[in-house]
């Protein structure tokens, strides 16, 4: 029996609202739709494990702290020395492909897609909005595209992922999504907030 997926921010009726607070909004907020994602645990010192991942997925797991690698519909974000978030960018679940590739190697794959909400923050003042709430140095090289960082936004744990095209993806636990969304909308008020479509 399958049940309809319930998006964490569905109650805000963002698609129906679709409004902008001004024509030249400084920041745009978008609630990304569900994307399959897993948390992968494995031994970063185990060459066979790393090779199995590369053979199955077509790219290397990022071993340097807070780096991101991606290839052909999948992105791996460094979360810890033995922990990665493997995110599908095509909507196709990677769980099966990953599990097949890593068979025989010590690892754990934990489904995380429904555990998180991704909020995209973009626009010319996106960094100013995040700076109000997050202690990270957003202007430094550590948060250029290709990097990521787990940190806090106000009182919530987040994963911050700067995007190559500008803006940020904020991954937040689904039960915190409403709080974080409202915080961002409030922090952006002085710059003008636009609510975007699915991002």
């Amino acid at each position, binding site marked *: 029996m399958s049940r309809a997926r319930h998006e964490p921010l569905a109650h805000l009726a963002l698609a129906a609202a679709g409004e902008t607070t001004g024509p030249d909004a400084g920041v745009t907020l978008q609630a990304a739709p569900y994307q399959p994602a897993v948390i992968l645990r494995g031994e970063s010192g185990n060459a066979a494990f790393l090779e199995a991942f590369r053979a199955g997925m077509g790219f290397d797991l990022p071993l340097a*702290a*807070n780096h991101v690698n991606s290839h052909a519909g999948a992105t791996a974000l460094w*979360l*810890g*020395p033995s*922990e990665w978030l493997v995110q599908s960018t095509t909507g196709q679940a990677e769980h099966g492909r990953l599990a097949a590739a890593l068979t025989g190697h010590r690892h754990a794959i934990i489904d995380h897609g429904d555990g998180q909400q991704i909020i995209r923050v973009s626009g010319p003042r996106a960094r100013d909005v995040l700076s109000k709430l997050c*202690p*990270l140095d957003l202007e430094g090289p*550590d948060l250029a595209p290709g990097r990521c*960082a*787990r*940190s*806090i936004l106000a009182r919530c*744990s987040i994963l911050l992922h700067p995007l190559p095209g500008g803006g940020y993806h904020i991954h937040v636990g689904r039960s915190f999504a409403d709080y974080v969304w409202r915080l961002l909308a409030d922090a952006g008020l002085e710059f003008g907030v636009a609510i975007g479509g699915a991002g």
Partner: protein
Amino acid sequence: MLLLQCPWCGDRSEEEFACGGEGDIVRPLVPEELDDRAWGDYVFMRRNEKGIHFERWRHAHGCGRWFNVARSTVTHEILASYQVGDDRPELPE
């Protein structure tokens, strides 16, 4: 506000961390052979150092890893941070 150096993530704000108290406390290998006083020492007694304090911190909102920090309890200066299992680093006088 302290700026702590996570051995993996580098300098991060104290907000991201949780302090785990004094470090390098070894759990007795055979607890049932300890008398109450020795067990009480292990569980409760801490050095409460005025000066350089070796303590455990966890990058709770970051990479989630435990590590050790040498901190002056007088000046709040962070003198060193190092991974669990590493030897205590040489500290400047």
